[in-house]
């Protein structure tokens, strides 16, 4: 066997005293990782890795899902960039990303508010986290009810103050804001938990030193606390961007993209084109665009991670 190459790994160098048994062990620990990885790698490749490539491939074809596939090159993309619906969806996705960026600071604000040790605070924190635990379908239902023009809580409040009821989910200009607000609810909860964990691990000596130097208020937060919370902020931003780009459940349950496609996002548009309009190739092209946008963040995240591993 190639004992010279295997000897490089430190755990085996210890064993090289006995040539024969060492040889056997070396072989075992060369093969072993692949035995352990095998099942996960195989199923992950079948269901995740290959489908990504297949979708990219498929986006160059005209296909109804049943009949022949016709190769049309960039045809789907050309049509896509000419379509108003696509630009509406993309604009909405950008709105999601921009407004979702409220989640980390709001999560931080709530975390700062709750980071005390008073009676019952654990239950309070758990209740604040609550929206993240329940399904987005339920969140969507809850908010549809909340927004309902004839009996929703929101309109009860508006009419109480003398305003006219608004039908948020039926209003082309308001609908996306309404859905994003619903999406922010669990997202803020998630960010809050990330920051609460971060606040638990602050460096006390640094805080005390800063306090002795009379640092307080915003300065304390900005110069002393926030730099220490950077890992939490990083993860909060990553999960928030991914969450914004993945928005599907709420759009599907609250409006199905309506009224007249005004609240659709790329994820929902893709589903609609493929499942309802039987345009698999065109749908795949939408998915590829979404995937490419997401790749920027995936690549950045991986780059950070690999750098920290080395």
């Amino acid at each position: 066997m190639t004992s010279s190459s295997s000897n490089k790994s430190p755990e085996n160098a210890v064993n090289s005293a006995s040539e024969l048994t060492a040889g056997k062990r070396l072989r075992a620990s060369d093969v072993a990782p692949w035995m352990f990885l095998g099942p996960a790698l195989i199923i992950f490749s079948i269901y995740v890795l290959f489908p990504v490539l297949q979708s990219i491939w498929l986006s160059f074809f005209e296909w109804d899902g049943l009949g022949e596939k016709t190769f049309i090159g960039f045809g789907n993309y050309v049509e896509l960039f000419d379509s108003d619906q696509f630009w509406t969806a993309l604009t909405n996705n950008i709105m999601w990303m921009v407004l979702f960026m409220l989640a980390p600071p709001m999560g931080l604000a709530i975390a700062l508010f709750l980071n005390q040790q008073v009676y019952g605070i654990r239950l309070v924190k758990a209740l604040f986290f609550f929206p993240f635990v329940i399904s987005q379908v339920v969140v969507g239902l809850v908010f549809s009810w909340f927004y309902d023009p004839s009996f929703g809580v929101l309109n009860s409040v508006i009419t109480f103050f003398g305003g006219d009821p608004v039908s948020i989910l039926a209003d082309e200009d308001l609908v996306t804001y309404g859905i994003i607000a619903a999406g922010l609810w669990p997202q803020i909860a998630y960010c809050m938990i990330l920051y609460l964990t971060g606040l638990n691990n602050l460096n006390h000596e640094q805080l005390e030193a800063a306090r002795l130097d009379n640092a307080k208020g915003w300065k304390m937060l900005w110069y002393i606390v926030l730099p220490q919370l950077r890992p939490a902020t990083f993860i909060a931003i990553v999960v928030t961007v991914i969450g914004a780009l993945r928005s599907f459940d709420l759009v599907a349950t609250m409006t199905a993209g309506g009224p007249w496609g005004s609240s659709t996002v790329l994820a929902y548009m893709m589903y609609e084109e493929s499942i309802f309009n039987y345009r698999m190739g065109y749908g795949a092209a939408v998915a590829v665009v979404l995937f490419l946008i997401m790749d920027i963040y995936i690549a950045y995240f991986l780059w950070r991670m690999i750098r920290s591993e080395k």
Partner: protein
Amino acid sequence: MYPRPIEKASAFTNISYRVALPISIVLWLLPLLAVMATSVRSLNDINQGNYWGWPSEWMLIENYTQVFTSTPMFQYLMNSLIITLPAVAGCVALSTMAGFALAKYNFKANIWIFATFIAGNFVPFQILMIPVRDLTIQFGLYDTHWALILFHVAFQTGFCTLFMRNFIVGLPTELIESARVEGVSEFKIFWHIVLPLVKPATAALAVLVFTFIWNDFFWALVLVQSDEVRPVTAGLSALQGQWLASWQLISAGAVVAALPPVILFFTMQRHFIAGLTLGATKG
């Protein structure tokens, strides 16, 4: 501690804080409380516009019984269990093995395989949709529980491997090496040394992944369609269309659908949060 402990503030601030806490919870959970209140009202109340007044009669038991007797909600809940439990077991098992391989063996492709699992975990579902749907149809699994079980095992294995790998990295390597010197086989090392040590982590992971899979909606729309297979998320969404006027029933259904992950969360809170905040304190 940051911010300063409230006990050290003035008595006024201290008391205001304690009063503000319950008020803030009510405001934060207002939409949810509204739905819970609705789920115990009578249809009469709803038809007459009594949404916010005291319910004219309490229909707690009636409404929740009716959800189970006149809708397929029970079937949906069972489907969710049938799908979620094996899927959780599957991805915890696969990812514990894969996590061990990535954490305790040095081989060339190690970090790249790890990165692949993580990247796959962030991919938008839509880029997988058409091929996974085709594959499921080809396997003859479309509209069966297996369609969802297999997909969830595969997809969640990405996140779970990240989780298990990071946990196993922290286990003492000396223990594994000394077993190796004794001539213990790699599989026995995994079974007798690693598995007992990762038990707490697998519990945490199981809770978290249970919630993810239970709450899945997209794949439930794409891979199954009949009431006999549909999990509770897709079922609830279908009910919403059929029972448009019966808000008290839909609300009760929503509460029932949300309950299992909520109960799990409250009983296993610490584990749950440890999983979600993985990497939030260093890196």
